[in-house]
């Protein structure tokens, strides 16, 4: 545990990839296999379910530290992380622990679940008393179910591959499903991952590592120069669903998400469709809710995923379909080194034999300009734009770009997000790296267009005097929260303005005198009775600071109302920018 906490610290402290890989190799070189098995699990993104509710941890920490809840809360606000707050407020440990990670997890953490609350509290307090601050932090993260580490699965694979002189792709393949919550990691499992004797009994349902796409960020005029002619590319619509691999082997179907989560049970419709495929087939594609011959908005799919049990009603309200766009294995042959066009042919053949599975349609045009024009219909079609895949490219691993900048990459050519200009009215400090910096903002639009700057200013002055808005009068209406899209330098600037214009503090939240206008982008917009504005936006983020925009020219509720229709009918570049 101590050694793993130290590794976590090293990974957390270093920003250089090579330093992280070195730290990982140092750890794995000396760790006992059972400990290493759990370390791989946690580092590769495995999350044990929450063992103890965080509220319990909070209360227990206050008791152990002898501080009042308000003082703990103040501390938490300064730290921005619960486990770290707990690690620091507790008095220094009185005992030392030399137990390894596996024993900690298997003998101590997991048995906590389901223990009666008194026994839980007693044991956790005793555990805390054996660990220094880094150890406590880690333990509390693991108990609270909030463990995250600044290292990618790819890096873990690279470290293990380098350490055991294996191909990183092979390690990646062996690690597929490793973090699936249904299986406990153990020394035997770990031994399979790092086995150098070759033959590892491959689990029949194992998927391949996903090949991830990159955003294409170039003006249309440069497409020809950068990508070559459209005829070299397979152009498909980009669906807004869940990326998935469907594996059919030995009579069984497995459905895997891009996060390597086994989702077979959530999508019985897809299992049924894929059962028609011959053994030794693996398809890559998108799961979408399919209604009335078109993909439905993502939030329907999201709602369905949130359901614990799939009732008949859920299945009827949100039926899913699978849009296949790649074949990674056919007749048991790994096709990933074959060119895209050949895989496409294999895919077409497989899909033809499995009615109901949809073949992702190809759009063939002579020029990028024609494709660009066609792309403008994305919103009507309920898609996000185009995917571009080079005809000759093989199927890569992860987000790594292949040699020859353009050719080996899958490109996302997405339409511009919906956007409005909104006013910052509340701010909250961020978490983690952004603790103590105001980075989480609430934005508002005008209830109607202000007549002029003076009218808008009068509202701002009334807000500054804490006067409640008159019913029916011009006011600012909160509608979205956003915390991404600015650079660190921009966040610092905004943070400064927030501190200078703070009106009131409500716990961690500050209300500010409205002075700043931002262009907010979002992916979707829907009516929502739960929001004060009556409108909910999907994935809002800051596109830029509109220093050039006076407050009274920010957008209005009517702008948002108008965008509600856009999802179905109008074109992309909405907003009053």
């Amino acid at each position, binding site marked *: 545990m101590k050694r793993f906490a130290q590794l976590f610290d090293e990974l957390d402290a270093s920003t250089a990839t090579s330093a992280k890989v070195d730290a990982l190799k140092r750890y794995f070189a000396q760790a006992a296999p059972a400990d290493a098995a759990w370390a791989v699990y946690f580092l590769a993104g495995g999350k044990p379910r929450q063992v103890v509710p965080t509220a319990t941890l909070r209360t227990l920490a206050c008791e152990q*530290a002898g501080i009042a809840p308000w003082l703990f809360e103040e*501390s938490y606000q300064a730290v921005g992380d619960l486990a*770290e707050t707990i690690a*620091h*407020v507790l008095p220094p440990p009185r005992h030392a622990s030399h137990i390894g990670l596996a024993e900690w997890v298997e003998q101590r953490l997991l048995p906590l679940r389901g223990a009666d609350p008194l026994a839980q509290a007693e044991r956790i307090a005793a555990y805390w008393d054996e660990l220094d601050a880094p150890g406590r932090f880690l333990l509390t993260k693991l108990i609270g179910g909030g463990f995250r580490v600044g290292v990618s699965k790819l890096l873990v694979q690279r470290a293990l591959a380098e350490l055991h002189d294996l191909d990183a792709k092979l390690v990646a393949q062996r690690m597929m499903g490793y973090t699936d919550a249904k299986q406990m990691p153990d020394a035997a499992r770990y031994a399979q991952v790092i086995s150098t004797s070759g033959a590892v009994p491959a689990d029949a349902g194992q998927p391949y590592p996903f090949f991830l796409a990159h955003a294409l960020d170039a003006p249309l005029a440069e497409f020809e120069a950068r990508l070559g002619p459209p005829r070299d590319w397979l152009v498909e619509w980009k669906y807004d669903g869940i990326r998935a691999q469907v594996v059919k082997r030995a009579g069984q179907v497995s459905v895997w998400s891009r996060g390597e989560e086994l989702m077979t049970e959530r999508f019985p419709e897809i299992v049924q469709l894929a059962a028609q495929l011959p053994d030794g087939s693996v398809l890559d594609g998108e799961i979408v809710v399919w209604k009335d011959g078109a993909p439905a908005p993502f939030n329907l799919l999201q709602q369905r995923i949130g359901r614990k049990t799939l009732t008949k009603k859920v299945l009827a309200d949100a039926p899913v379909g699978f849009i296949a766009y790649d074949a990674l294995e056919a007749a048991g042959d790994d096709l990933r080194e074959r060119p895209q066009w050949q895989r496409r042919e294999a895919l077409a053949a497989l899909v033809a034999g499995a009615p109901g599975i949809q073949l992702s349609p190809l759009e063939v045009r002579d020029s990028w300009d024609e494709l660009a024009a066609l792309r403008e219909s994305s919103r009507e079609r309920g898609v996000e734009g185009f995917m571009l895949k080079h005809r000759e490219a093989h199927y890569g691993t992860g987000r790594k770009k292949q040699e020859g900048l353009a050719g080996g990459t899958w490109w996302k050519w997405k339409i511009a997000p919906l956007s409005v200009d909104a006013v910052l009215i509340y701010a909250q400090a961020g978490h983690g790296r952004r603790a103590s910096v105001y980075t989480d903002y609430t934005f508002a639009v005008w209830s109607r267009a202000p007549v002029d700057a003076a009218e808008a200013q009068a509202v701002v002055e009334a807000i500054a005097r804490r006067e409640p808005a008159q019913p029916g009068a011009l006011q600012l209406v909160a509608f979205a929260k956003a915390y991404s899209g600015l650079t660190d330098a921009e966040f610092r600037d905004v943070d400064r303005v927030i501190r200078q214009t703070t009106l009131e503090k409500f716990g961690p939240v500050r209300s500010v005198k409205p002075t700043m206008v931002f262009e907010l982008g979002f992916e979707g917009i829907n009516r929502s009775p739960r929001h004060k504005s009556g409108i909910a936006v999907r994935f809002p983020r800051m596109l830029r600071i509109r220093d050039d925009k006076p407050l009274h020219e920010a957008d209005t509720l009517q702008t948002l109302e108008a965008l509600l229709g856009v999802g179905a009918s109008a074109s992309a570049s909405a907003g009053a920018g």
Partner: protein
Amino acid sequence: MSSTSAPTDDLVVLRPEGLYCPPGDFYIDPWRPVARAIVTHAHADHARVGHGHYLAAAPGEGVLRARLGQIALQTLAYGEVVDHFGVRVSLHPAGHVLGSAQVRLEHRGRVWVASGDYYVAGDVPDAREDNLTCTPFEPVRCDCFITESTFGLPIYRWRPQRELFDDVNRWWAGNADQGRASLLLGYSFGKAQRLLAGVDPGIGPIVVHGAVEPLNRAYREAGVALPATQLVTDVSDKASLKRALVIAPPSVQNSQWSRRFGDASDAFASGWMQLRGARRRRSVDRGFVLSDHADWPGLQRAIRATGAQRVIVTHGYESVMVRWLAEQGLEAGAFSTEYGDEQETREETKEAAAVSLVDPPAATRQEPPA
């Protein structure tokens, strides 16, 4: 919360210029020019230019003059008493930096103490935890204690400094073994000297930035033992830099100056390094939690030791400290001072001032942070 409206017979009140003693007609660490100022220590947010007359602790004379240039300065040995309009004034060690002092005021049987910045760590006294570069903090009994509160949250509890210096030495030795310089960032005045006094000079040569050396000189002249240091321009054998510990102000991070050390490992020494968020914002290889301010247990212990029934909190987590003290049954209030904004700005201010020691005098004027 604010004590500005407190009864007029208070020995210290808040005025726009700073903390003011009405019967003595002088200020303590004022932020605007006044006729008479007692200065607790030479950090920029406490010692400003433009006052008519200065009173400070004798050990800090060198650094104060280096910082403020030509000033009318009177010094007192720690514990020495001077009477001013019936107020008995004496200065007592604060353990923060060389020459740092608490101000004891006695008038008509009442005793008030203003702490300035001070360093004392842990729940129990432990001489091994003292700041080796200055006289350790000394509790002074009083009726009212005006205390700083920079690290006034229970998350700030310093590890024993010998463990901390073990970590620094291990990091330095590890880098030296790999042939990498160790760039250790810390404020030029106070922190740099504390680092120098704490590290193991046997590991390799020690190089300091040009902003640090004048302060080292002042410390050495005041009798503080520091290991041998050299400026990078004085190093003739450039290969020896690969084993060197380089102590420099934080402002050199990613600068032309620091690039000469090549693939150096960098670290930052500050109490703020206690938190992951702060460490990551700094983006250095290592964060060493070393502070010249009291930690949470230290603050509690220092306040208790004064026996004061009334406590006024100046800067840091004021509202937290005030509420906590009130819950302990003390009469607690706050002074809203201009000793820096929350958290890092304050330290940055000090840093700018420390660096300005080597700049022309015109640049030493440090504006208070917004």
